């Protein structure tokens, strides 16, 4: 749970973003603490995706400051965000269909063995580590199978396994439970619990109220580019969150 003394892993102050004349985000303050699961909710166009993309380094904010683990950071590319320990599971999962599960997990940070000046891929080690990660996720996924031939849940597992490779301190999940089966939703929520136990902060971007109330410690509601609510989960209710999302209730 959020600890008042701890340094927030992520701290946003006055974040704003304009695309030409369109104001996508306005003056958003947000803190996320280690081991905390924060649900980020809002209707389409509320600014959730823009906020996530700013934190992930896809966009640079027009205003405001991002501090990660106490230090001010400026991301110009997604790799910069990844380097400090921010991982994102994208809604479309960002998988290459023509590659195997293990290849996708290690995409961009392959394990290699040196043979003199030549570094060749270490297929065995990557497959073994991927199998271990799938084991943790309890997903029946073979590292050598092509992603093309996989079910939605398996694909999700591959995308999540990727975030487990590094020592991520903040994992953002964009609609991880939108297109998978009930059993797999349970698995994903289970994984979020396990990330939390490890002290990893999780931001869950979701439309599914039951999932948010099942795993989150805190819920943040966005509407029209502004943060309208930031409440501990036991101090609010699905009805109130719905009202905040739709605008029936202005702020809380």
């Amino acid at each position, binding site marked *: 749970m959020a600890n008042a003394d701890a340094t927030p892993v992520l701290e946003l102050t006055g974040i704003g973003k304009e695309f030409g004349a369109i104001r996508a985000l306005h003056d958003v303050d947000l803190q996320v603490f280690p081991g905390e699961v924060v649900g980020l909710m809002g209707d389409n166009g509320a600014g959730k995706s823009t906020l996530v993309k700013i934190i992930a380094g896809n966009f640079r904010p027009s205003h405001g400051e991002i501090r990660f683990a106490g230090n001010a950071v400026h991301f110009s*590319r*997604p*790799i910069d965000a*990844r380097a400090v320990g921010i991982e*994102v599971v*994208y809604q*479309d*999962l*960002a*998988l*290459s*269909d*023509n*590659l195997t599960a293990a*290849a996708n997990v290690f*995409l*961009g*940070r*392959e394990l*290699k063995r040196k043979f003199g000046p*030549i*570094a*060749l*891929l270490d*297929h065995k080690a990557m497959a073994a580590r991927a*199998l*271990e990660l*799938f*084991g*943790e996720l*309890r*997903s*029946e*996924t*073979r590292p050598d*199978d092509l992603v093309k*031939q996989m079910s939605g849940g*398996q694909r999700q597992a591959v995308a999540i396994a*990727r975030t*487990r490779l590094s*020592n991520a301190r903040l994992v953002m999940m964009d609609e991880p439970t939108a297109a998978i089966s009930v059993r797999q939703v349970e698995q994903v929520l289970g994984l979020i619990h*396990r990330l939390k136990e*490890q002290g*990893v902060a999780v931001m869950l971007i979701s439309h599914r109220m039951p999932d948010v109330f099942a795993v989150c410690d805190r819920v943040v509601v966005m509407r029209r580019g502004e943060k309208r609510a930031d409440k501990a989960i036991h101090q609010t209710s699905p009805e109130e969150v719905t009202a905040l999302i739709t605008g029936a209730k202005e702020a809380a």
Partner: protein
Amino acid sequence: MAMPMESPISFTNIGRIRWWQRGIFASQTGYVLLALAVLLVVMHFASPYFFTEGNMQNVAKNFSFIAIATLGVTFVIITGGIDLSVGSMMCFSAMITSMVMTELSAPGSPAGALFVHMAADGKTVVANVPGLILVVSVLAGLGVALIAGLVNGFCIAVLGLSPFVTTLGMLSIVRGLGYVVSNGRGSFPGGPDANYFYAATSGDVLGVPVPFIYLVILALAMAVVLHHTSFGRHVFALGGNEKAAELTGIPVVRVKIEVYVICALAAGLQGIIISGWLGSAPANMATSYELNVIAAAVIGGANLAGGIGGPLGAIVGCVLLEVIRNGLVLAQVSSYWQQTLVGVIIILAVLVDRIRSRMT
């Protein structure tokens, strides 16, 4: 941050894919290889000359003349791009190579003075290491290919132009430059190193044509690069899902530029080899070869949509094209039919693959 494994995974619902449904057996390359084997058997019975040593050497040599460029263009096709400038690139590289060789071998010219001098009896004598002129001129030929490849890659990866349009433009630019530098006449390898040049491009070692040896070495190198290096992995990832490749931090721009450079270098090398066999680099050399090269890659299983392809497929495609051409000649069919047949085979190969992927 290792999490303890709570229970080993059991694969109760996920079956293992059978060996004949994966890898090469399930690929277009596999089917085309099978078709090629059948064709070879048919040819054997159709013509007693087909499997003679002379004809086999001929076939090996002829398909090697487009296969090295096909390896290069396969890299580009795997990333989901296309390079139409390979034919022109072959010609231009070959032309620059022979022009530099001739220039360096002329005792009177300023550059030539470094490499040759005139002996008392009026013969040209090499001033330093034999073969140096050859090396310098081949490097010059590959150098211009490198530059053209960099320009292709820069326009496509950095400026975001479409590969089709960029390389179509480059096709014309490079061909035009070839006419400009040679005044439309082409050029000929000359000087004291010309014999080395012919030996290195169209000779043979123990009965095996040299171009075929180059091809085998390059194909093996390509297989290692594609399947056992992170660069190869990134090439496939780029063709599978470019956006994903970018999000996972793959240096997309660099990989793209690299594949166009590799393709240009392969085309340049191919052109230099062809000019050794022809004994000259005429300005209209290798015109429309890009179509043969791309056709061979596609027949061999490289997918123009990206993400699929490899050296074996490239070679199989080239061999199939050459065996058909050779077979038509042996069967005394008009060689004009060749093009028509090649077109039919391209469509058939892709069609069979489509039907197969619909069935599974």
